[in-house]
C-alpha cells in the first residue's frame, strides 16, 4: 500500500499544491496537508486506539476513500482545482486519512510487477486529467480494505540495507522535476507512469538479481545525478532510469516498510525540491537544477 499512498495519493497532492499554489494564510491549506501532518502520529494513534485497525473500521475507511475519490474526481474531471475551497479540502483530507488507515492496517509492502503496472496505469490516466490519479488511489484503498488488491511479499533477501527516510527524500527531490515545468497538461503524469513501469521492470527476476548485487552507493548516487541532469526533451527516458534506480533501492529497505518514514522522507524531498526550484534567482542553483535542458 505504500507505493499507492506515495505515488498515487501523495504524488498527486504534491502536484496539485505546486500547480495551484499553497497559501498558508488559508485554513484549506492545512486541511489539505492534514494527512501528511498526521503521518508521524498514525502509529501511535493505531496503537492506542485499537478499534482503528478493526476490520469494520478498515472497510469503512476503504469505502470512504473511494467515495471521496469519486466525489473529487467527478467535481474536478476536466476542471481546475480550487485549493482554497474549504469543503473540497475537507474531502481531500478525509480521503488521505482514510487511505492512511488502510495503509496502516497493511504494513506488508507490495513488490509485484502487477502492482507497479497498476500504479503506472493510474499515473497514465493522470495524463487525461491529473485528478484521475486520485481515483486510482481511492479505488486501491477500497480494494485493499476488502481484500481484492493482489499483494505480493518480497521473496528474496537483500544483503544491503538503506535508510528509507533518506532514500525516499532523495526520490522526492528527483521525481517531481517534470512537474516544475508548470504546464497544466505537463509531463509529470506521463513521467510518473514511465517511472512506475521502470520499477516494475526492475522487479523482473533476472534484473532484480543483477540489481541486488549493486552496492548501495551506486543507485543513490545515480538518483542524485538524475536530480541535476534533467533533459526535458528525454523526459520518458529520464523517468525510466529513475524508476529502475528506485526499483534497485526499494528491496533494500527493512521490512515491514515504515510508511511514516518513507512518506515523510518523500514529502520532505518534494518540499526541498520545490524550494530549490523556487529560488532560481541564484545563478549557481539555476544552472545546476536545469542542467541538460
Amino acid at each position, binding site marked *: 500500500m505504500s507505493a499507492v499512498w506515495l505515488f498515487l495519493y501523495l504524488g498527486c497532492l504534491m502536484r496539485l499544491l505546486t*500547480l*495551484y*499554489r499553497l*497559501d498558508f494564510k488559508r485554513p484549506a491549506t492545512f486541511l489539505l496537508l492534514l494527512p501528511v501532518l498526521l503521518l508521524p502520529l498514525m502509529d501511535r494513534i493505531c496503537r492506542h486506539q485499537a478499534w482503528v485497525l478493526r476490520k469494520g473500521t478498515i472497510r469503512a475507511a476503504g469505502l470512504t476513500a*473511494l467515495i471521496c*475519490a*469519486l466525489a473529487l*474526481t*467527478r467535481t474536478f*474531471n*476536466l*476542471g*481546475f*482545482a*480550487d*485549493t*482554497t475551497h474549504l469543503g473540497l479540502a475537507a474531502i481531500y483530507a478525509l480521503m488521505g486519512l482514510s487511505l492512511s488507515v488502510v495503509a496502516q492496517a497493511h504494513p506488508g509492502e507490495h513488490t509485484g510487477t*502487477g502492482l507497479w503496472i*497498476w500504479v503506472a*496505469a*493510474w499515473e497514465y*490516466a493522470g*495524463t*487525461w*486529467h491529473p485528478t*484521475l490519479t486520485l*481515483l*486510482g488511489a481511492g*479505488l*486501491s484503498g*477500497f*480494494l485493499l480494505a476488502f481484500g*481484492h*488488491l*493482489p499483494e505480493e511479499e518480497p521473496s528474496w533477501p537483500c544483503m544491503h540495507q538503506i535508510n528509507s527516510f533518506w532514500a525516499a527524500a532523495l526520490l522526492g527531490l528527483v521525481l517531481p522535476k517534470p512537474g*516544475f*515545468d*508548470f*504546464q*497544466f*497538461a*505537463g*509531463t509529470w503524469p506521463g513521467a510518473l507512469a514511465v517511472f512506475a513501469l521502470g520499477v516494475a521492470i526492475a522487479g523482473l527476476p533476472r534484473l532484480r538479481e543483477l540489481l541486488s548485487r549493486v552496492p548501495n552507493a551506486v543507485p543513490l548516487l545515480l538518483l542524485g545525478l538524475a536530480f541535476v541532469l*534533467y533533459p*526535458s*526533451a528525454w523526459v520518458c527516458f529520464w523517468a525510466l532510469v529513475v524508476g529502475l534506480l528506485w526499483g534497485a533501492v526499494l528491496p533494500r529497505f527493512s521490512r515491514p516498510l515504515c510508511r511514516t518514514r518513507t512518506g515523510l522522507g518523500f514529502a520532505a524531498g518534494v518540499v526541498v525540491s*520545490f524550494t530549490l*526550484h*523556487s529560488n*532560481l*534567482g541564484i545563478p549557481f542553483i*539555476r544552472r545546476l*537544477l*536545469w542542467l541538460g*535542458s
Partner: protein
Amino acid sequence: MKQWVLPYFCAALALLAVGLPLKTRLDAPRFGAPAIVPAGKAFEVSFATSLPFVPWRAAAGALERQWGLRLEQGGRRILSHRQSGNQHWITLADPTPVAGALRLPVDGLEHWSEGAVPDRLVLVHVADFPSTGREAMLERFVDEMAVLKPHAVLASGDLAYDSSAEWYTFLVGQLRRLEVLGIPVIACPGNHERGGWARYLNTFGLNTTHRVNLGPFAILSLDSAHGRDRLTPSQFQWFQDQLDHLEGRVPLIQLHHPVFPPGPAIHGNGEKSGGPLFGYRDGLVKLCVERQVPIVLTGHWHQDAVFDATGRFRDDTADFPGTKFVVTTALGDALRRVTRWPLSYYGYRILVTEKGRLLRYTQDLPGQPSPTPIASTPSGTWLRGGRP
C-alpha cells in the same frame, strides 16, 4: 494475472462513474487565445472529453451541446480530426469571404476570420490591470480603444489582482466589449493570476502559452509567472519550435516578467520590484536576436522601461537596432519607480507597424524629444483627442 481482472474491471467502472454523462473542455481557441485565420485557411479546435477513447463524432457532438456552438456552420467544414486518449483535435476551414480586416466570432467559438488586413497595423499592449474599486479605469480604457480602434489588444498579465468571481465577470465583460468593437484580445497570465489560478484557467483556458497569428505577425504569448523558474524547459522548447515554424511571419513576444533586471538604471531599491526573467533569459535573448524578433512586450514593473539585447537601459533613444525589450507601465494598479526613467503614469503602449515592420512603439510626450524614448501612452490620451 487473473487476480488483477477484478481491480481493472472496477477501474473501468470507476472511470465511467466519473466520466458520464460525457463532458468536454474546450482548450483552443479560447477567449484570450483566439484563432485568427484568413478565409479558407484551416484552423484547429482542440478539446478534451471526460472519458478517454470516445469516438470523435460523439465527442464533437458533446462539445457542441455543452458549449452551444456548431463546428460546421455556414460555409465552415470539418477537414480532419485526430485523437489521443481523451484529447481531440478537429481541423476546420471557413471559405466565406470576409468584408474588412476581421470578422468577429459569431457562434461561441473564438474564431476570427481574417480578411484584407491593412499594411499598417496598430496593436495595443497593456499589463497590470486596475483592480476592485478602480473598475472605471478599465471601462475608460475600453472607451479609449473604441476611439483608437487598434487591430488587437495584447494583455501581458496581472489582469486579476482580485481573483473573485465578481472581478472575473467584470473583466471578461470589459474585454468582451473590446471584441464587440472588433478588437481581439490576446492574453497571457501574470503572477497575480496564480492567486486564483483555477478561475483564470476556467476563463482563459489551460493553454497559458499560445500562438495567435494576425496579419504578418505570429504573436507568441509565454507564461513566465508561476513564481519558480519563470520560463521552464518545456516552455522554452515550445518557444524554440514556434520560432522554427514561423511560415514567413514576424514574431512578436509577450510575457509578464521583464526580461532584464533594471541594472545600473535602478532607482533606489527599485521599489523591490526586481522581478526579471530568471530561467532561460540568455536563451530567450539569443533566440530573439537570431530570429530578428522586433519587440518583446512585458509588464510587472508598473513603470515603462526599454532595454536592448545587451540588457542596456535605453533612455537615450527610441530608435536603436535589434530587439526592443519593452516594459509597459500599469494600466491601473499602483504606480512605481523602478528605474531612473523619471516619468510614471497609468497607460498602455501603442505599436504601429507596417508590412510586419515595427515603425513606432513609444509615445511622444510634451517637453520630451521626438521620438520620446521609453514612454508609453498615458491613459486618456485618445479620449482627449491625442495622436501617437
